[in-house]
């Protein structure tokens, strides 16, 4: 193409861009004048990393239902990232209508900033967690190191991959599951539990900052013998890399991971989106949504849906954060705050 041709092409292009924007402005103006408030609502769902695929599917179903019931188009935008980072964005002013995070502690922090009442977790059924998960082991195909339960993770020569509980919400579930197992086994002996997690973390060669980072370390870098992972992440890894590479091992006892959801009051009241936001979260508890959650490897809360997926989600003894640790605030303070148990196990001579 000669220079002159290129120039005229460029000009033509610019012209069309100009026309397009004029057209867009016209359409926008028309929409403003014809359709008052009713035509469209936009919601922002601020979530954590591994829920992306689930919410893409769920948002579609919700938009369809909302359209049918209210004749209104609703667009749900998604924001994903580390759970704590997402919470900080909301505290710092990100306009989230709803938050769907990895642990209640992160929503507690938003509540502390005044954006929503501190009793938020009682507003929806099941601790405001419409779906759950648990912590399982992902091991290499055939389980060459014969890892069956938490005790096997302490054996010399076994490398355990888990993210850093100080930076990753998911990793806190891992750590607490190990702690709960030791308590159960040793008749609630706290000192033994501390020794147990200390020994476990001696077998951890890398502390990635997030759950996805650890998954990459284990699956792609081929490092380690066992990955401590959310059940849904473990299933995603099987789906992604092939079931011929990894096996999922379910330990004898684990923790019930409850990713909570709630409406951000200060935002929905300002934007006038409360009705849609509340409908959005309530929809999570319906059979249709529970089915989508189960398909995306989250454990559904509704028994009839859970029954259909029983072979996917084996029965395992699960402790809860409220039952065994007195809630997230207490657990956070004791284990993960500066100078907490996790810091202590790294201080004495490594």
């Amino acid at each position, binding site marked *: 193409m000669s220079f002159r041709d290129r120039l005229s092409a460029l000009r033509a292009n610019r012209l069309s861009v100009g026309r397009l924007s004029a057209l867009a402005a016209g359409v926008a103006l028309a929409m403003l004048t014809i359709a008052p408030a009713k035509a469209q609502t936009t919601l922002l769902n601020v979530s954590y990393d591994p829920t992306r695929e689930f919410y893409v599917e769920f948002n579609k179903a919700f938009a369809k239902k909302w359209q049918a019931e209210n004749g209104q188009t609703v667009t749900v935008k998604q924001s994903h990232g*580390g759970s*704590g*980072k997402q*919470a*900080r964005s909301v*505290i710092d002013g990100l306009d989230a209508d709803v938050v769907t995070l990895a642990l209640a502690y992160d929503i507690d*922090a938003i509540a*502390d900033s005044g954006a929503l009442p501190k009793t938020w977790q009682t507003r929806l059924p099941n601790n405001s967690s419409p779906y759950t998960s648990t912590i399982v082991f992902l091991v290499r195909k055939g389980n060459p190191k014969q890892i069956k339960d938490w005790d096997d993770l302490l054996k010399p020569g076994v490398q355990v991959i888990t993210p*850093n509980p*100080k*930076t990753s919400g998911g990793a806190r579930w891992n750590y607490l599951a190990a702690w709960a197992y030791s308590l159960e086994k040793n008749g609630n002996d706290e000192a033994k539990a501390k020794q147990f997690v200390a020994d476990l973390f001696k077998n*951890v*060669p*890398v*502390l*990635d*900052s997030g759950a996805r*980072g650890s998954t*990459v370390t284990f699956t*792609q*870098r*081929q*490092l380690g013998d066992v990955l401590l992972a959310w059940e849904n992440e473990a299933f995603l890894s099987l789906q992604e890399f092939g079931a011929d590479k990894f096996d999922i091992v379910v330990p004898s006892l684990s923790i019930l991971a409850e990713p909570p959801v709630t409406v951000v009051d200060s935002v929905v009241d300002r934007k006038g989106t409360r009705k849609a936001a509340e409908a959005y979260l309530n929809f999570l508890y319906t059979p249709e949504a529970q089915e989508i959650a189960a398909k995306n490897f989250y454990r559904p809360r509704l028994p009839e849906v859970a029954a259909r997926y029983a072979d996917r989600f084996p029965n395992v003894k699960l402790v809860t954060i409220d039952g065994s640790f007195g809630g997230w605030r207490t657990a*956070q303070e004791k284990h*993960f*705050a*500066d100078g907490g148990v996790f*810091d202590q196990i*790294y*201080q004495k001579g*490594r």
Partner: protein
Amino acid sequence: MSVLRKPSVLPGFGLTLGFTLTYLSLIVLLPLAALALKAAGLGWSGFWDAVLTPRVLAAFKVSFGLSLAAAAVNAVFGFIVAWVLVRYRFPGDRIVDALVDLPFALPTAVAGIALSALYAPNGWIGSLLMEWFGLRVAFTPLGIAIALTFIGLPFVVRTVQPILQDLPPEEEEAAAALGATRWQAFRRVVFPALLPALLTGFALSFARGVGEYGSVIFIAGNIPGLSEILPLLIVIKLEQYDYAGAAAVGVLMLMASFVLLLALNLLQAWMRSRHAR
């Protein structure tokens, strides 16, 4: 009067100075002041309590020590790269020249992932190093040093290159005419002229290394007290919603970097004046 004044490209000294100060305040001073203000919430004793813990001090050693090491490596090898690029013509020299800037352009996280894939025990280079020397690179402090060397390289090359280019050949010719060997001419004539630029490159590479997060986080093992960098501690504190504590570590880094950079600047000024004599 106005005829005598040296004409300037930008109009109005007052206007441009005003702009400069406002711009710097908005872009640099205000954010730094906000950082200091957050940290100030702790008070003096609170600040030192937050900063003088074994864990922060260990991370301080890792961040500053390895950044200095990486900057030193870059000073030596960046100098050689700059020398070759300026003094020799060879096929593909333009491409090599462009390659130097890649660490600037690459998102640091991508660099980190690429480096850790390469140096992981099953990576191309990592597996060989493991086999031949039993050396573990990824997920150790050595891995951090490699990431910091990678991102710091362009600073040395790009500061030394133009000075080397502008070095008058007459000086070297004169040295040769007076009977100096090539090594003497380099050591006595060329190198002193380049030293201030080299120091600048060293300082920039060091400063970049201290603040680096993205590329390091993937290749470091992030084990507390061993391979944990200061920026990671800031992230950890933020993850606990400890804004003030995070700001305190930030201020500590800023203070240390400032002192070191100031010292390097003074050294440089002193060397310039000595060379100009």
